[in-house]
């Protein structure tokens, strides 16, 4: 039994030899670690908690990158799982008085079951691509309705207030992580650890299998893979990471309201991943943090400006950065666009001249 398990782990998670392609990963993790340690000494506590909340959104972006970037499953309702995690944590702590660690487990368990059920019926039935995206949006709207109307549990429109911060008790020693600095270290460490783990998992043979399923699912099936199962597994893992982000969000902010199930936020997640670079793990996290901070700055001037700016950014991203923020590719695309524009102008100029000649 043990031998068999070892063989399977060896097959699926075996890593290629380190090479030049791993430089961004190593540099990125080192830089991340440095930032985690330095930032509390550089900025004031209020700013630190703002960045912390943005980093929680980074975890959400990471979970979505795993699903869309690595396996090519597009959903429009990823915040369903963020909300379920947040509500699970809030209900478990406020209504049932559980300790935060237990509440996180409850939140993850509920989300995992919902994701497994939804994913099983959709993915095993062969629902893919935009059909999957539309159904996932319907699930999000159902969840939103449930959160507003099931008042006895979710508190209706007001949501749940007074959620306790993170504390952990291990063998009599209790660790309070609810202060700005404490929660910063907790959140940042969780995000960095998960980013490193997912990067390593995607670097292994299993990551290649996922990439293969994303590019040519039918061919992968002919290689002996039960592709629906692998997609379901990834869907559940991604939902669990989103739920963890939800738990952290609830614990950090102390409130949960039905607007966590917002379709707007679900679209923003797609934008973060698209701009940060699909399948790069680190890119979407950085994009999510940057966009969330930018959103707060812009919203303080005018609340209507943000959706406008978001739309413009999305359009620009589709036009110039179809692969996300990768400097070299972006430059190539810009140049190509510029050439197309100038060529068209030259062509139309020539056409006018020829018309003139004929006339």
């Amino acid at each position, binding site marked *: 039994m043990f031998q*068999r398990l070892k*063989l*399977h782990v060896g*097959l*699926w998670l075996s890593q290629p030899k380190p090479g030049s392609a791993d430089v961004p990963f190593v540099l990125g993790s080192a830089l991340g670690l440095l930032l985690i340690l330095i930032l509390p000494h550089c900025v004031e506590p209020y700013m630190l908690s703002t960045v912390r909340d943005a980093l929680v959104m980074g975890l959400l972006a990471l979970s979505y990158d795993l699903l869309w970037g690595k396996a090519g499953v597009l959903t429009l309702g990823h915040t369903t799982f963020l909300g379920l995690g947040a509500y699970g944590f809030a209900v478990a702590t406020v209504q049932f008085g559980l300790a935060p660690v237990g509440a996180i487990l409850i939140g993850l368990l509920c989300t995992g079951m919902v994701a497994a059920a939804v994913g099983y019926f959709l993915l095993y039935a062969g629902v893919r691509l935009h059909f999957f995206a539309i159904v996932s949006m319907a699930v999000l709207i159902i969840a939103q309705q449930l959160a507003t109307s099931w008042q006895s549990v979710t508190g209706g429109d007001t949501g749940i207030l007074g959620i306790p911060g993170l504390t952990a008790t291990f063998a009599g020693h209790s660790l309070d992580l609810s202060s700005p600095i404490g929660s910063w270290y907790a959140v940042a460490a969780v995000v960095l650890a998960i980013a490193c783990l997912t990067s390593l998992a995607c670097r292994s*043979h299993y990551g*290649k*299998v996922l*990439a*293969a399923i*994303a*590019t*040519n699912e*039918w*061919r*992968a*099936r*002919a*290689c*002996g*893979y*039960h*592709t629906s199962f692998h997609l379901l597994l990834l869907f559940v893992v991604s939902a669990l990471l989103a739920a963890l982000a939800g738990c952290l969000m609830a614990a950090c902010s102390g409130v949960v309201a039905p607007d966590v199930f917002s379709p707007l936020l679900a679209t923003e997640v797609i934008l973060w991943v698209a701009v940060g670079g699909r399948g790069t793990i680190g890119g979407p996290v950085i994009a999510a943090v940057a966009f969330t901070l930018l959103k707060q700055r812009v919203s303080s001037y005018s609340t209507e400006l943000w959706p406008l700016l978001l739309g413009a950014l999305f359009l620009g991203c589709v036009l110039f950065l179809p692969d996300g923020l990768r400097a070299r590719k972006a430059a190539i695309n810009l140049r190509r666009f510029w050439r197309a524009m100038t060529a068209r102008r030259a062509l139309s100029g020539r056409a006018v001249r020829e018309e003139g000649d004929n006339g």
Partner: protein
Amino acid sequence: MDEPLMKATHLRRTFGGIDAVADVDMSIKRRDLLCIIGPNGAGKSTLVGVLSGAIAPSSGSLCFAGESMAGKEVHQFCRRGVVRKFQGTNTFLSLSVRDNLIVAGLGVASHRASPLPDPDVVLQEIGLHGQANELAARLPHGQRQWLEIGMAMMCQPAVLLLDEPAAGLSATDAQRLVRLIHRLREDCAVLAIEHDLGFVRALECETWVMHRGQIVRRGTYEDIAQDEEIRRIYLGRGAGYAAH
């Protein structure tokens, strides 16, 4: 030992009232090598599709190693050792050549709890060791054919179904492929469907002729080539193909 590895009885597949495969009986034994030829639309590709689990038969039964394969999906066929080489361009284009091979081998290896076949050995055999780190999308068509064959080899097949393996290969490559197929036959049964009669002749194997969904002749290539009726079916109106 002589028990057939794969056995099909009264196999039929209809598309909109037309029998693409009509009442085919066949059996493949261990280490058999056979070729199916026939004009366009004879149902060769559909037959390979049904044998590989990609297309469900409309009626009839298909057994592999004594087990009925009815209702089984294509990944279950592959795990049992019925492996199909697709026509040309069906690889994982976004992965490197080596990763294509690793991915192809991993599914079956993990299901059987056996170690992964060494991709470097297969790379040598298919002659792509120089392009191991190249993206599959960058390979020319002929080399993608070799990659497809390599991917099928990584699946540790018991029955290898080759769908037009020589299409797009140069004459020297076709000769190399003939040698490789004879080598593969030491480990598994090989069934090839092919248009290129020169390639079939070079294989020197049992040859079947398919026409309108049925297998109309079974014999050696020489017997088939002598048969007047086959010449009429296969070569059509003129003998323009004969020189081919």
